[in-house]
């Protein structure tokens, strides 16, 4: 079987590959969460919070859409992109790791902003949005771990 040039560029892929695989798995949680929110948003139903009580306030606020597009849909696309890049990186595809770092950094900043909005502007929390932020923070942790690992090599 022919080995692609991309696959030969990573001589010791075990540790980063595991971290990339972990990032792919974690992003699936975010993807599931974002899909649920997208469907509920597009269906126009009120999302019911079971742990905290601010889902309706957050999801019906002006910050729930960006230019008429549901933020949950943007999140779903972002998580799918992260999953794809992490999977490719786990298989040693060159370039996908750097792109993953960039996308996750962007998501991290966005998540910080969204948590700030919930806490200080809307003054209500949505558990599904908090889960999404938690997933992004976990992804950030994994990406930082990958970067540190690569720096020490």
């Amino acid at each position, binding site marked *: 079987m022919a080995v692609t040039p991309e696959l030969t560029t990573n001589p010791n892929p075990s540790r980063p590959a595991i971290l990339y695989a972990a990032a792919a798995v974690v992003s699936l949680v975010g993807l599931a969460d974002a899909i649920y929110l997208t469907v509920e948003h597009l269906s126009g*139903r009120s999302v019911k919070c079971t742990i905290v009580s601010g889902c309706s306030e957050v999801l019906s606020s002006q910050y729930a859409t960006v230019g008429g597009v549901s933020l949950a849909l943007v999140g779903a696309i972002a998580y799918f992109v992260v999953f794809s890049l992490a999977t490719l990186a*786990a298989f040693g595809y060159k370039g996908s790791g750097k792109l993953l770092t960039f996308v996750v950094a962007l998501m991290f900043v966005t998540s910080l902003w969204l948590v700030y909005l919930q806490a200080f502007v809307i003054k209500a929390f949505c558990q599904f949005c908090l889960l999404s932020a938690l997933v992004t923070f976990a992804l950030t942790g994994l990406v930082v771990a990958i970067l540190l690992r690569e720096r020490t090599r």
Partner: protein
Amino acid sequence: MKRVLPFLIIAAVFGIALVTAWSLKRSGAETAPVRSETPGVSPNARNPSTSASAPVAIPAAADAGADPPHAHGPVNAPVTIEEFGDFQCPPCSLLHPVLKTMEAEFGSRLRVIFREFPLVPTHEHALVAARAAEAAGMQGKFWEMHDLLFTNQNSWKDAFDVRPIFEEYARKIGLNLARYRQDVSSETVQYRIFLDGKRARSLGVKGTPTVFMNGREVPFESLAPEKLRTLISAEIGKRGQ
């Protein structure tokens, strides 16, 4: 194979994501399991469909709700729409102009009933709003308050204290303010909301707006003006009017 494998995984996840979204949408659009398993049909549902995708009928044993209900249109209208709504629910405020349009278009052939279903504690002002509407109803001006609450939802839903805002609405529609203040916290108003909520629960209503047409639930996606218009026309056609 190793070169293609990640793409296969990505494609598989993409497919699963699409299927999940589709099934979530379907499960949300269809009625709750409680209702779909409940036997019996409403006396109003003269021709209930039995297909799997058909809306579920109101069970005969359902609670009656507040009596008399807040209704627009003649009792013998060929089509009766019963809405379970929450004044603080954004989709309900979007449905409000749609129902107004339908009422204008179908006139005496359509009867619209509004039932209180405040989603507390999700919507912190929903109960106060329901009480304000019911108190207005005690002076024969339920629909005037109902309209004001929905059309101005954005201006009060984030307010800290909505009571002065609702009192302003009461003044605007010409209510006797002293009586309004008394009625808002009266047992009669509280009991009406309780009875509507009891009916909602007996029907398995879980979200708002939930709409029943001639005793059968209308899927949420059919509440768009053009779809609702078609459904009402079909219902009128069935009754040969």
